[in-house]
């Protein structure tokens, strides 16, 4: 497209520098360099920092980017497609589990094709370093039939974002980039440059029923066009790295992070002559010609990659009859966890009969208790779960957990698996269980993600269920992205309109009132929603701010009955055990304490008092 010129060749440069960036930021710069027009996202680690950084670049350089702060990945994907249909370059960002949500539209965006370049950034997480799971989303790719880049370095995150827009426009197809957690937060100094946007750019939607209306024969025809398009890409596009001895009998193929692991080991053990290394930067569709050329004169090809062995599978599928040598890989490496250097090293040691005499001997593993963490001091979830646990203590009640801070360590809910798992699983349980009371919980983020619809489902099916929305006013866990509840959202009006008649407002900082109302509602029928107010303490909680520099709490050891309500049941991290045996003595660490006053509220012995600062 003429109005999205290549920054490498254009002379209207407005910024060009070598700067230190992490991969999230590098992608933002890449998108800005490609003159992206539209950005939609749903926040999720490890790609949660792309959109905020792009906003900064947008403000600094007046890039005129339209942002869609999407409430879930489904609408993020579709809105980016809409912008692209009109000729705009669009970027959409989500994590691997979010791709499940967006999979519905992505399955059919290939059928319609795109006009402006559309790039999809997906954060993957081998090793589940910042996620509930480590699913291998590669298997979606041949289903969507979108080309896929996998960068191996921070610089490539920048470069391939630009390349992806160009490839997308060249072939009128969305292009994906997968960024694993380990790479996403890696830093490097990289070269970036921005060119001037063309001002007053006009976009236009060309109506085209053959393209955009997909059903029956039309859908089959567009599916055929998509397959032909991808076939063409697999022949015409080739992005890879060829290293070391091309005449070697052993070939190794890598993708993403396994490239640097293998590269480093080849040099460390001086295997440069014995190995021919090929890294696929454009992982899908694989270029059959490249693979066949690589396989010439090889006795064997070993595919070294993390997760389930996608590339090995693709090579075997597309080249099986044309390659005479042995192809293997996953049989030697696990499909779970991160692919560790140790695993590849051990494989090399056995395979090439290497000497390991001069390696450092590591110290044996020691068992150290896990330090999973806890809620922040004064976190509204602390009070909410104290109230829930107090009511449920003798009732064997079930607490449905969602995704977000409320379900993180110290794991106060009963499960943690996916968005809206609280309201979803709890419904089924509520319908089946007779004696155990069931409630579901979730933050405002997941409520707007799809929780509201699940709640409507509970109303629709006349389920007896209490759902608690912890409204902390933002998507706190991923960096306080905006939530609709921050604005003028009337939850009463909203919930009433979907048929929830009992909406109970409580504050997480008032456990007496919370417990009283909870006990009252527990024996009632129908869908009841507790709207639990309490803003995140790390993003301007007015209640805390009004008290922080004014008050301080104190524990009177002579009155303390060692009931541990504050220390264990509330579990405030600011309360310390001085361990003065035989009697424990609790103390409040005033540096940590944010003066929420919950300990004072719940102490049955009146041992905790709140004083005014002098």
């Amino acid at each position, binding site marked *: 497209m003429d109005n999205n010129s290549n920054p490498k060749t254009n002379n209207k440069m407005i910024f060009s520098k070598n700067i230190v960036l992490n991969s999230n930021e590098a992608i933002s710069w890449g998108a800005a360099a490609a003159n992206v027009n539209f950005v939609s996202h749903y926040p999720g680690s490890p790609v949660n920092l792309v959109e905020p950084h792009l906003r900064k670049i947008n403000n600094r350089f007046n890039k005129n980017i339209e942002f869609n702060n999407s409430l879930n990945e489904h609408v993020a994907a579709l809105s980016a497609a809409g912008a692209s249909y009109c000729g705009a370059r669009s970027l959409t960002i989500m994590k691997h589990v979010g791709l499940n949500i967006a999979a519905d539209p992505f399955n059919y965006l290939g059928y319609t094709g795109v006009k402006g370049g559309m790039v999809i950034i997906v954060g993957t997480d081998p090793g589940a370093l910042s996620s509930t799971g480590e699913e291998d989303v590669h298997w979606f790719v041949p289903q969507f039939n979108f080309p896929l880049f996998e960068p191996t370095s921070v610089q490539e995150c920048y470069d391939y974002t630009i390349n992806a827009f160009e490839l997308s426009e060249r072939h009128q197809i969305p292009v994906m980039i997968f960024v694993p957690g380990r790479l996403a937060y890696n830093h490097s100094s990289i070269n970036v440059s921005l060119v001037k946007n063309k001002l007053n750019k006009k976009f236009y939607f060309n109506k085209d029923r053959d393209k955009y209306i997909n059903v029956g024969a039309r859908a089959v025809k567009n599916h055929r066009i998509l397959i032909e398009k991808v076939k063409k890409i697999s022949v015409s596009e080739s992005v890879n790295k060829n290293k070391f001895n091309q005449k070697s009998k052993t070939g190794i193929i890598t993708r993403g*992070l396994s490239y*640097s692991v293998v590269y480093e080991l080849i040099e460390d053990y001086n295997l440069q002559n014995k190995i021919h290394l090929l890294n696929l930067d454009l992982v899908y569709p694989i270029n059959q010609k490249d693979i066949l050329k690589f396989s010439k004169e090889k006795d064997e090809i070993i595919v070294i990659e993390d997760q389930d062995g996608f590339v090995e599978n693709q090579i075997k599928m597309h080249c099986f009859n044309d390659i005479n040598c042995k192809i293997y890989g996953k049989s030697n490496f696990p499909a779970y966890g991160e692919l*560790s250097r140790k695993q590849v*090293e051990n494989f090399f040691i056995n395979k090439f009969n290497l000497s390991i005499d001069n390696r450092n001997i590591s110290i044996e593993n020691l068992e150290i208790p896990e330090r999973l963490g*806890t809620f922040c001091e004064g976190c509204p979830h602390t009070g909410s779960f104290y109230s829930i646990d107090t009511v449920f203590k003798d009732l064997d009640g079930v607490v449905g957990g969602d995704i977000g801070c409320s379900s993180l360590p110290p794991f106060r809910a009963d499960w943690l698996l996916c968005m809206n798992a609280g309201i979803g699983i709890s419904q089924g349980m509520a319908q089946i269980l007779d004696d155990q009371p069931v409630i579901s919980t979730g933050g405002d983020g997941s409520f707007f993600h799809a929780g509201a619809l699940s709640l409507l489902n509970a109303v629709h099916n006349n389920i007896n269920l209490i759902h608690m929305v912890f409204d902390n006013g933002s998507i706190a866990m991923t960096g306080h992205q905006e939530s609709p509840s921050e604005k003028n959202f009337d939850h009463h009006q909203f919930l009433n309109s979907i048929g929830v008649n009992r909406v109970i407002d409580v504050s997480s900082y008032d456990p007496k009132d919370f417990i009283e109302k909870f006990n009252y509602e527990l024996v009632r029928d129908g869908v009841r929603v507790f709207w639990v107010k309490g803003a995140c303490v790390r993003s301007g909680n007015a209640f805390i701010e009004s008290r922080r520099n004014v008050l301080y709490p104190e524990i009177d050891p002579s009155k303390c009955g060692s009931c541990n309500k504050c220390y264990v049941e509330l579990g405030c991290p600011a309360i310390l055990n001085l361990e003065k045996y035989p009697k424990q003595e609790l103390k409040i660490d005033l540096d940590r304490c944010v003066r929420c006053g919950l300990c004072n509220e719940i102490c049955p012995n009146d041992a905790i008092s709140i004083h005014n600062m002098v």
Partner: protein
Amino acid sequence: MIKSVINIIVCGIGGQGVLTISNIIRKMALSKGFKCEGATFKGGAQRMGSIHSELRIIINKTSKVISSQIPIGDVDLLIATEPWEALRYANRCHSKTQLVVNSKIETFYVDRFEKPKIKNPVDNLRKIFINHVIEDFSKQIANQSSTHSHLNVLMLYKAVKIGFIPFTEKDIKNQISQL
């Protein structure tokens, strides 16, 4: 012989400044023209969770392609703002790894629910490692015996003073002034 790659693990508890000093080290390395690979592991916790960062500074290597994973047993310098956390990464080190550890123990949050029977981590560290600087840096900060106001920065100065990483106190000052 100068090592071609210096491997560093910085670890501690969220909020102690682990990420800040990792950033300072990374920026010092890059500003000197060294390449630096690494990864940060923030975990899912908001407070009191384990946190660590791996850094690999490439001093002298022709190809300059290395993985962000430090080979097991190949850590050269371990900076830990808490002794239990130092012990957690002992299996990544060898007996001659240089340690700079804050001796002030932070109790485990899980303590309050279930008492673990563990002995003193500081004694363990002294037993396992030959080259260690294990001091109560927290106390030094509290006593104002130091001119540096933050635990993490004080420990980084100490690591630089030992001469294990190719940076000077001035380099640290330069980076801090840019934060």
